[in-house]
């Protein structure tokens, strides 16, 4: 339970003259739900982008430990390698494949867990067919997980906003990650929908025993779902700890939460 899954040390990221991340250390343990919070522009999304290979960090080490034992350094790896290793993410601004169906979106997530060749695709031999069936059934399972199965053949773009967020989660889950990175999953959801999302995250952790790293501005959700919270401001980590600790931390209150923390 407390073997590490992600270990980031001294991560820095510069954009021209702007230092968006400054020596950030962060650790996520197997099976835990961690949250990353901080004011707007603190560098949270940039952190995600760095560890998933979309940006190449300027400095620092990123290690993942898929099984909790073997450390793999992933600096400079391509995003698809990172995903293959078992880290999957969602995006702050939704990035679905809008004119593919919901089911197909999830099937894309299965791509990297599959090895059927071009020749196989043409000949459609037994192996390929079995794999295709497996892709469909697993994808469908993911849709059931997030409760979108009845939309399976709908185009992704036609889903309401909240459903699109859940679809992103399903798609990420289809890659069989050991660590799931969620960037503001509750944005644009009303309180009730947010609560259902929280239940979903809990459920995912329970069923698949995977770790979750979450960026979120909805404090009610963050406080209730996470085991551990990291707080960033101006690219720096300013606090870390359990929800109680963080919400009492004066620096965090000043920079982020404001006076009456729980609205």
């Amino acid at each position: 339970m407390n073997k590490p899954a992600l270990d980031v040390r001294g991560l820095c990221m510069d954009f021209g003259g702007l230092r968006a991340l400054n020596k950030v250390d962060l650790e996520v343990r197997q099976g835990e739900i961690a949250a990353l919070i901080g004011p707007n522009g603190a560098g949270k999304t940039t952190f995600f982008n760095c560890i998933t290979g979309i940006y190449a960090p300027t400095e620092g080490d990123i290690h993942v430990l898929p099984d909790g034992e073997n450390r793999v350094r992933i600096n400079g790896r391509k995003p698809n390698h990172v995903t293959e290793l078992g880290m999957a993410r969602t995006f702050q601004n939704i990035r679905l494949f809008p004119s593919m169906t919901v089911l197909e979106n999830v099937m894309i997530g299965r791509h990297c867990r599959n090895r059927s060749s071009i020749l196989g695709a043409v000949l459609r031999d037994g192996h390929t067919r079995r794999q295709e069936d497996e892709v469909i059934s697993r994808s469908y399972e993911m849709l059931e997980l997030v409760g979108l199965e009845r939309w399976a053949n709908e185009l992704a773009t036609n889903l309401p906003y909240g459903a699109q967020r859940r679809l992103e989660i399903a798609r990420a889950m289809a890659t069989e990650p050991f660590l799931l990175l969620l960037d503001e999953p509750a944005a644009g959801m009303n309180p009730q929908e947010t609560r259902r999302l929280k239940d979903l995250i809990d459920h995912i952790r329970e069923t698949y025993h995977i770790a979750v790293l979450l960026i979120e501005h909805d404090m009610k959700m963050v406080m209730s779902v996470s085991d551990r919270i990291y707080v960033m401001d101006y690219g720096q980590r300013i606090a870390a700890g359990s929800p109680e600790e963080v919400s009492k931390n004066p620096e965090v209150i000043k920079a982020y939460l404001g006076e009456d923390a729980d609205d």
Partner: protein
Amino acid sequence: MTSPILELRSIDTYYGKIQALYGVDISINEGEIITLIGANGAGKSTTLMSICGVTPPRKGQVFFQGRDITRTSAEAIVAQGICQVPEGRLIFPGLTVTENLDMGAFLRNDRNGIRQDMERVFELFPILAERRRQAGGTLSGGEQQMLAIGRALMARPKLLLLDEPSMGLAPLVVRQIFDIIVQINKEEGTTIFLVEQNANLALKIGHRGYVMENGVITMEDDCATLLADDSVKKAYLGL
């Protein structure tokens, strides 16, 4: 109160062949803050776009200050004093922060006024002042949201339409934004039409509110009444 500044008379709006709004009636009086709440996909953003003429309604009419603007083009509607902060942070990604703000004042000609307003926006959102020369597209999600709001303020509209202004903003900033809304409403008399998922806050600052479900207005009342309403509490306040 005087005659309504904006009035929607049973409008129907379609996306291609799909109907998104069904006979929506809304009326807003001058100087009011009106809140519109509803679940995802209820048609709130569509309502705003219908007012602005981006997706003009197929049936029904929209009146602004007594004039029929149903068939008026979007830019002409803006010229009459309606300004919108659209959902999804529609900023000009390649322009710098300053240029983005400048675009908000496209229809204005008073240079000094524009400069003052820009300073005011920078005061409201200091982080934007820091990012002055950065391209809008590289801002963080929250910064983009602030920029979009700032840009709308630059237009000094008579009627301000806000589509989920608090989305993606830190709690501190959210409260700040709501303060600003109340402030410009009080001080400048700007009429505000607010669409929000954060129903709690929105209903607190609003005068009257509407509830929308599946493209239909299902409730209309004073905000205080709505806040107290059980069904609203259950469905939108998460209590």
